[in-house]
Every structure is written in structure tokens, then in C-alpha cells.
């Protein structure tokens, strides 16, 4: 589970055209002043390391950031922030070092490759991209632990542009970047989808190119790590998107807002309404996808279901969590490829295991009871049963 602190809600200095928070941002009035004591009290109650998040968290003035980080350092021995980086100044870099802040930056590439992370005009967009790139260099030079989120779309990963993107990632590796995480574009708006979404073959080609690059790089490139562990049923650390996220409670994400209140992960918010969390989790999505034919938006009969479960509800076909992910074809192809690799190495992926029916049966029974055991737990239980007479 991750705790995110969002002092200013979805307020941002950019207006990335694909941002899944746009429906909220479009309706939001200026956020009320945050209440530092209330936020810290909620963080204390949550009792877990947290990440500063937004919108853009660096819109918060530095003295307030320092107060938050001083608390984070004292309480958890570490801090994290997820930012677009365009507002980073020398004083921030110093503060990152002082308060042991690990920094995640979102940049989709140099120059025009980052144009989807739009700032109202082309001039402003390019200037902010430059600022983010400069910040990235400064962070690497200062040896602030920094990683990157890179979202794949037509502006940076079309067949024509992909080679430049790969070159850039090699340069970042040489600069000392710790790691990069790739996002497939979640499409929430038809106009945005039409201009930015890659098709399945293009997404696959991009991911495969990154997978090939992975071996050349020092940094970790989180393309397939989770998918591999899910296939092997070692899922206790896999991210939320593979583990039957309930869109009404989004257990993996607890957002602490400016007045100290808790909210859900924004990826499932398509209506621009900030719903509170439901009182109890339920695993209905996994249960219904398991039984709904693939032709109708479900996952029935898919041998990768235990590993994938229809992926993030925020990416459901037609923006509807009751459908499987719009990226199913991409994930399916990747699972096939990983499955073959694992088998070649002498491993037994769950998709090809004789245990699969028993695991599926137990998972679905557990979901019907409102529980969501890990695959690792189920495998241990099955092994115990097999070994006891």
C-alpha cells in the first residue's frame, strides 16, 4: 500500500493532455488552503512512509515542504516525491539531500517528445520541458536518488520517434539515473486517444525495444518485473494493477488531501467527482471478469488470468471498471513472451501449471467471500495440503 500526500489536490503547473486527473482538474475550484496539522495527523495515523504527490507537489512553498520532510525523515527515515520537475530549483535539490528525498520525475523525452506534457502554448511547454531536463541533470549530478516515469504515446514512441527515445534513455543511464518505469497510456478522452494513443502493435514494439535495452543498462527498467513475478505466483510485492484492485476502495492507494481527509486513487475517477472510499473492499471486478466471455469485455478462459486479472480498473475498456483493461492485447502478448522465457529457463509459470485450476477456484471462492489472498499464500496452502496425508 502506498500513502500519497496531496496538499493541493490535483492543482498543477502543467496540463498534460493525457493526465487521468483532467476530469477533476477541469472542475476543481482553487484548492482551499491546506491544513498542515491535519495532514500530519492523518499521516501519523496512517503510520507508513508516504510520497508527496499531486497534481504538482512542488507548487507547495519550500518551507512547508521542509516541514513535511522533517516529519517524514524523523518518523520514517526517508521521503519520496513524484513531480514533473519543472519547478525544481537549487534550494530544492539541497532540501532533497538534507531530508533524504527520493525523487520520481515524469518526463516523456527531450524536446518535442515531451510535448504531450503541455503547458498551454508550445513556447511554454518547451521551456518547462527544458526546466525539467535541467532539473534531472542537476539531481543526477548531486546524486539525489532519482527515477523516471515515462508514458508511452504517439509523441514519443511512434515508430518514427522511438529510436530517439531509446537514445535518450541510454543518456540518462550514463548520467546515473536509478531506474525508469514505463506507463502505457490510459485513455480517458476520445479526442486525446485519437491523437496520442499508440495501437497494440506499436505499444508492443516499444515495450519490446525497451526490454532489449534493459540488458544494456545499469539502471533498472521496470518493464516486466511485476509480470514475471505474477506469472510465478510470487506476487506479494507486485503493484496494485495486477492484484485485483477494487475501484471503490483502491486499497493500494490512500491519498491524504489538504484538509487531512482520505481519498481514492484518481485513476478510477472518470466523472470528476471525488468520491470517498466505500466502507469495505470487495473483489467483484475480478469475480465478474473471470466469468465474462472475452468477446464481451471479460477474461473468461484466459490462462493468464491469475497473473493479470484484467489489470487496472482505471484502464477498463470504455472507461468502465466492469470491463478488462483496454491494454489486454499488449499484456497478453507480453505474458506469452515471458511465459516462454520462463519455461526455457526451467521454471513453471502458473499459466502452464497443473495447479492453475485449483488456484483459480480458491481465488474466486475467496473473492466471493470478500477476501483477496496472495498467490504466494495460496501456493503455500496447496503445497501443505499436498504434503499432509
Amino acid at each position: 500500500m502506498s500513502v500519497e500526500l496531496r496538499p493541493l489536490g490535483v492543482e498543477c503547473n502543467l496540463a498534460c493532455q493525457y493526465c487521468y486527473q483532467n476530469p477533476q482538474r477541469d472542475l476543481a475550484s482553487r484548492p482551499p488552503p491546506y491544513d498542515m496539522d491535519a495532514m500530519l495527523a492523518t499521516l501519523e495515523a496512517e503510520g507508513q512512509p508516504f510520497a508527496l504527490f499531486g497534481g504538482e507537489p512542488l507548487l507547495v512553498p519550500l518551507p512547508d515542504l521542509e516541514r513535511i520532510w522533517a516529519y517524514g525523515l524523523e518518523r520514517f527515515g526517508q521521503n519520496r516525491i513524484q513531480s514533473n520537475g519543472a519547478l525544481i530549483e537549487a534550494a530544492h535539490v539541497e532540501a532533497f539531500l538534507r531530508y533524504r528525498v527520493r525523487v520520481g520525475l515524469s518526463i516523456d523525452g527531450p524536446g518535442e517528445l515531451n510535448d504531450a506534457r503541455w503547458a498551454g502554448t508550445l513556447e511554454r511547454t518547451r521551456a518547462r520541458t527544458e526546466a525539467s531536463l535541467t532539473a534531472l541533470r542537476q539531481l543526477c549530478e548531486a546524486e539525489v536518488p532519482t527515477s523516471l516515469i515515462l508514458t508511452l504515446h504517439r509523441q514519443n514512441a511512434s515508430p518514427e520517434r522511438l529510436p530517439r527515445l531509446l537514445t535518450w534513455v541510454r543518456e540518462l543511464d550514463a548520467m546515473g539515473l536509478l531506474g525508469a518505469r514505463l506507463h502505457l497510456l490510459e485513455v480517458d478522452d476520445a479526442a486525446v486517444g485519437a491523437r496520442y494513443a499508440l495501437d497494440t502493435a506499436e505499444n508492443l514494439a516499444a515495450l519490446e525495444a525497451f526490454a532489449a535495452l534493459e540488458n544494456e543498462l545499469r539502471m533498472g527498467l521496470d518493464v516486466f518485473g511485476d509480470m514475471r513475478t505474477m506469472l510465478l505466483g510470487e506476487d506479494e510485492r507486485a503493484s496494485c494493477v495486477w492484484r485485483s484492485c477494487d475501484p471503490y476502495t483502491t486499497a493500494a492507494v490512500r491519498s491524504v488531501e489538504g484538509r487531512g481527509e482520505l481519498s481514492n486513487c484518481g485513476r478510477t475517477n472518470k466523472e470528476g467527482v471525488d468520491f470517498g472510499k466505500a466502507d469495505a473492499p470487495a473483489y467483484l471486478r475480478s469475480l465478474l471478469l473471470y466469468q465474462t466471455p472475452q468477446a464481451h469485455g471479460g477474461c473468461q478462459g484466459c490462462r493468464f488470468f491469475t497473473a493479470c486479472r484484467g489489470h487496472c480498473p482505471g484502464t477498463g475498456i470504455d472507461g468502465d471498471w466492469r470491463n478488462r483493461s483496454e491494454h489486454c492485447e499488449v499484456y497478453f502478448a507480453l505474458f506469452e513472451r515471458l511465459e516462454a522465457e520462463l519455461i526455457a529457463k526451467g521454471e513453471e509459470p502458473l499459466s502452464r501449471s497443473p495447479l492453475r485450476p485449483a488456484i483459480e477456484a480458491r481465488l474466486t471462492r475467496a473473492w466471493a467471500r470478500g477476501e483477496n489472498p496472495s498467490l504466494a499464500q495460496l501456493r503455500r496452502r496447496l503445497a501443505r495440503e499436498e504434503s499432509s496425508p
Partner: protein
Amino acid sequence: MIARLDFHLPRFRRWLWVSAEARAHWEPRLASLAAGLETLALEAVASKAGAARLVDPTPAEVSALRERARAHGLVALRMPRREDLAPHVQNPTLLTRADADVPGSWHRGDLDAVLAALGLPPCCAAAWRRTHVEARWRDGAWGTHGELQGEVEGPALLNRMLAPIGVHACAHDPCGPRCEASVDRARGRLDRAPAELAEHLEQVLDWPMEWNALHGVVELRTPVVKLSWDTDPCASAVVRRRPGRVMPEHAAVGQRFPYRDPNHHKLLHSVGWRRGLAHAEASGESP
């Protein structure tokens, strides 16, 4: 034709409030509305020889249900499940006077007599038979509206979109959204209700709301709460809307029906935003 899928989800009810304020205001009000209507229904059964209510409690709900029945001088009788009467009811339980003969009708398999005791007019009794006994729908909403998608017309008194949480003027699923016999019964029920409850109910039933079913899950959107429950699984989304005339207090502003319209779209209608889309279109995929 609505294509149906052959599985069922466990029974569930979920609530997602648009804000803490909406919850603080409406949660107790909706609960007291449902409780008031339940009391009214039990009083009606108690006052009329031969009348009954058919309910489907979960095992956990049974003892409280018995208590409530007893408080009104009624008995709660667990009946055997019958495919020829109510195949959609898992734990059929009749609330009735001890001297009533509706349990006998149930045992004899006399559907007309049972439905008459439940207060259904003949047209709606016929619809029950078609919907539940012949077509095997579990959720009566599929019977009232058939293949309908889009706007639901007809009086708010027959709005049963909130029936799964006990908020309805019409106690049965009407044969159609304009059924006059059902309107008469609903009106009669409101006339017996305390004035404040009746007025409050009429307002809530006239909220804009959307019933949206897919793959066995209904999402019922109102301006203050999104509710969700199990229904018969259909292969593609079925969406029905009541435009409504009453916007409740604490209604959320949202991007779609049935939320309040925003005064303006700060981002998605702005010049800067459109410039971004145009730029993406013009820039093509030059390397």
C-alpha cells in the same frame, strides 16, 4: 435483444458518497426514509386480512426481521423455494398475519393468489410471471423496462431505481413505467404515510438518476451517492436515465449526468487546451 451471461455474483450493496458532507446529510435521511416505508408496509399488512409481504433476507438479517414482524403483530414464515412462484428469491419469507392463508397458496403453488396477497394488480402479476418464472430474470428492473435504454419516462411515483435500498413509493415492480394500476397503489400508499415522509419520498424519487448495468453489477448514480448492487449479468452496458426535477442538497458537480453542471470547464474547453490538441495533430510523427 439484451444478451445475458450465465453466472451470478454474490448479493452485495455498496455505497460511494460524493463527499463527506453529502454523506452526513443524506445517509441518515435515506435510512430513515427506508425505515419509515418499511413500517408503513408492515402496518398495511397488519391492517388487512390476507395481505402479505415477500422478502428475501440473508441469514444474518433473519432474526431482526422476525423482531420487526412481531412488533407489528405479524409472523415471518420461511417458505420453501419454488421455481414456479419466485425462482429469483433465495430465502423466501412471508410476513403476514398468523391467520392468513397466503402460506397455503404458496404451498399449493397458486401464484395468482400469492401475488394478489402481495398487492400486485393483475397486469403486474402477469409481468411477474413473464419476468421471473418464464424468463428467469432475478432483478425485477429487467421486467419493468424490458429492452429500454436511455430516458425512462413515466411518473416519479413508479421510480424503483432506489428500491434495493428500500426507497420506493411503489412496493412492487410495475409491468411498465406508466402502469396506472401501480400509480394508484403508490398514491394510496403515500396518502397513508405521514405527510413529511411522503413529501420527502416524492422529492428523492424525482432526483436525476442513472441506472447502469453491466456484467452483473448495477451502478446507480444519483447526484449525492453512487450505489452498486448485483443484477442479472448482461453482455453489454444497459443504461437508463430519469432526468428528474429535484437536485438534492450537496449534489456534486461532475462531468456527466446526473451531477450538477459545472459553471465552466476550467481546462477542457480552454483555448490553451485546444491548442495542445491541434499541436499534436499537426506535429504528426516526424522523427
